[in-house]
């Protein structure tokens, strides 16, 4: 798959990190880590959630100061006190969580900190826009410099992030999980861009949890486990399974094992649903859908085709313009979120920090976010904390939430563990319909395996599961049936066993030819 011509210059090390140690309090996030990246190389970092990848890169970029260790950039020892130093030495970083100022335009975000000016400190905006156009053409990263960030897609935002680095003349790019929020199409484009960049002599450090991407993009891969470097391997000569087991320290299965079973009664029924998005445009346009008990229905589709609005409409977070929604034959159209929940719908939300958790509540408090009014957690008035605590402890054990401390605030958990808390809560409610939106985004393979297992378990308990994901692999391996959404409508319905990426990709692109190259 990785078919490009490699042009690594092994005589020119761009980055050398030697014996880096970083502690947060007593916790050792980086434990004597070494890393070497050459000119023209794409070097992947692989590790479980919380292994210390982002920490290491933040050190390289000057956001954290290491407790000990040395950093050499282009053969010179550098003390990276702050990002200004690393930027000056040609290091650019695209962060795991986007560092974009939402109300600003693309151009404003790119030039921030290095603004071209006229007299009076005035920003030379037309020059800025021209500059942005130029570099975006040079590296094949198309963007509209005058669009506001809040109005463009995540894929576009990703490009802006890369352009920010390139605008500063970076020749070493750190990409921290750049693909976590991208659609398959966008990922493909990004990998092409990365190869294009290395051809122009840039080096890239790529962090990702997706082994397929590492195989497709990277030359070398350094594996980190619990803050320690395990090994650095040549990607070409290592299989995905080897990478995964080095990272987790055990065998990981990628196949989602599930038994055949017969779907039963219709649980969710949607008729001619029309929903508007925030800008009052119709995002869902007359959609029909059925999900049955004992079935995992996957919804495949490119981001922005109405998935978000569809889920919000079902769960009561968004008003419906027309159409009807039924759960077990009961009409829940335009009911409140609580009424929808009461009728047996649970939801693993797309944005776990915005909707899924009250970050300043403890894990225990978060575990009863929907159930706090019910027995045994309260008598309707008084919260029964002993019950809430024992329930939480039980779930944390069962779903392996780490660290095992119910009194911690949700904020202090890693992303993967935050997701586990939500899944534990939603699955334990034992809903007739479980909706899972992007449930594995940003999770490591071990955690992904766990999430998939949980979804299949629900199905096996004869519950209905609606899975929405931008990852075709996930949709194909977990679902029984797949519905393809395009421009607010279901444009195709296939059995997961009888389809392939090509067919789905074609439908996801509205039947056109765009997604059909694979």
């Amino acid at each position, binding site marked *: 798959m990785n078919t490009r011509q490699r042009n690594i210059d092994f005589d020119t090390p761009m980055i050398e990190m030697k014996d880096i140690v970083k502690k947060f309090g007593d916790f050792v996030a980086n434990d004597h880590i070494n890393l070497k990246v050459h000119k023209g190389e794409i070097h992947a970092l692989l590790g479980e959630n919380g292994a210390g990848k982002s920490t290491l890169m933040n050190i390289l970029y000057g*956001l954290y100061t290491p407790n000990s260790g040395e950093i050499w950039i282009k053969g010179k020892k550098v003390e990276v006190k702050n990002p200004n130093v690393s930027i000056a030495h040609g290091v650019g970083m695209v962060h795991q969580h986007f*560092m974009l100022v939402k109300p600003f335009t693309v151009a404003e975000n790119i030039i*921030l900190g290095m603004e071209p000016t006229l007299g009076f400190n005035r920003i030379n905006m037309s020059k800025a826009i021209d500059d942005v156009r130029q570099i975006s053409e040079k590296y094949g990263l198309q963007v509209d410099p005058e669009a506001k960030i809040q109005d463009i897609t995540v894929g576009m935002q990703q490009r802006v992030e890369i352009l920010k680095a390139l605008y500063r003349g970076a020749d070493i790019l750190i990409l921290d999980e750049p693909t976590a929020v991208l659609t398959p199409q966008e990922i493909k484009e990004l990998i092409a861009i990365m190869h294009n960049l290395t051809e122009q002599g840039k080096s890239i450090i790529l962090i990702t949890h997706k082994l397929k991407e590492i195989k497709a993009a990277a030359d070398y891969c350094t594996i980190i486990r619990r803050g320690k470097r395990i090994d650095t391997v040549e990607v070409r000569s290592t299989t995905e399974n080897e990478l995964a087991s080095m990272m987790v320290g055990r065998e990981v299965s990628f196949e989602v094992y599930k038994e055949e079973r017969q779907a039963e009664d219709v649980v969710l029924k949607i008729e001619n649903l029309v929903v508007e998005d925030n800008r009052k445009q119709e995002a869902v346009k007359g959609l029909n859908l059925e999900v049955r008990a004992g079935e995992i229905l996957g919804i495949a589709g490119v981001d922005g085709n109405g998935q978000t609005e569809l889920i919000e409409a079902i769960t009561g977070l968004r008003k419906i313009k027309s159409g009807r929604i039924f759960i077990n034959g009961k009409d829940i159209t335009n009911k409140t979120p609580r009424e929808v929940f009461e009728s047996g719908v649970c939801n693993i939300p797309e944005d776990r920090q915005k909707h899924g958790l009250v970050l300043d509540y403890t894990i225990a408090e978060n575990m009863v976010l929907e159930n706090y009014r019910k027995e045994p957690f309260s008598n309707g008035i008084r919260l029964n904390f002993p019950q809430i605590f024992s329930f939480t402890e039980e779930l944390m054990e069962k779903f392996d939430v780490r660290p095992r401390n119910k009194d911690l605030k949700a904020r202090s958990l890693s992303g993967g563990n935050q997701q586990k808390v939500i899944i534990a809560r939603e699955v334990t409610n034992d809903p007739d319909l479980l909706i899972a939106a992007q449930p594995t985004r940003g999770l490591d393979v071990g955690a992904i395996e766990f999430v998939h297992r949980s979804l299949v378990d629900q199905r096996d308990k004869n519950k209905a599961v609606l899975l929405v994901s931008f990852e075709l692999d996930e949709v194909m391996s977990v679902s029984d049936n797949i519905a393809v959404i395009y421009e607010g409508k279901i444009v195709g319905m296939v059995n997961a066993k009888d389809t392939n990426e090509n067919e789905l990709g074609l439908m996801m692109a509205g039947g056109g030819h765009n997604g059909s190259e694979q």
Partner: protein
Amino acid sequence: MRDLAFILATTLMYSTPLIYGALGAVFSENSGVVNIGIEGMMTIGAFAGAASTYIMAEGYGHLWWVPWVGFLIGGLAGGLFGLLHAVASVTFQADQTVSGIAINFLAPGLALFLSRRLFENATTTPPIPLDAKLPRPLNQFFDLSSIPGIIFNQYASVYIAFILVFVSWFVLYKTKLGLRIRAVGEHPKAADTLGVNVYRVRYFSVILSGILAGLGGASLSMAIVASFRPTLISGQGFIAMAAMIFGKWKPHGAMLACLLFGATTGIQIYLGSPQVGLQVSANLLSMIPYIITLIVLMGFVGKAVAPAADGIPYEKGDR
């Protein structure tokens, strides 16, 4: 017509100190630091402006620069408390509301304390001589009793306020500095990763906010009246803060909100004046500005959104 001119003149006069205060709040909050200490900063500015001008006028006679220096001293005094607020809320990542409230106790306390030390135990300063007050630049062009005269017979501080609104808008939306201030207020970490010094930008903005608020206080004690009194500010700092929110954290918006407030006060005074001869309780008339403000808010203004990082202390290396 004359009545309208009167209302307009009152509007300009009354809204001026509010505009300074509101602009101060605009800068601070756009950089992500809530400043509820505007009230205190205005108080200390009012004192420092009036007291220093009086002392200089005593010492140097009535030279042209005396009021200007006094005005600046008023601003600097406010700026000093801006610095204090910045130390607390930027360096020590204090809860910004707490620090602002502290300033609302400290600044007026210090103003009274200094006043007693300087002026024989008096909590009010002696009046500034007329020719040591700020000038009234357009005064000589219009006959005082003519309609333009009524409207434009204003102190320089009034015109400066409006110039500052434009300058603030220009700085915030057209300059490098402004881009950085707003970036720091929206997403400090993003700015930090691009090498923008978040702390320095916030220090700058908060100190500037104090200076503007201080000028606002001085515009009251050196133009509208000619002395400092303990009750001089009495809540105007809070009104200015409300105006800043009303104006959606923008200089021009805040200005419009201040003008609305000034205009309704003008209408209130006009309705209570002998020529209207309305037989309505003064207490009911006094409610007018506040009620109209609420009604306008209900009718015209949608949800106001603060800068995303407003009120959140920035800590390097935080998640």
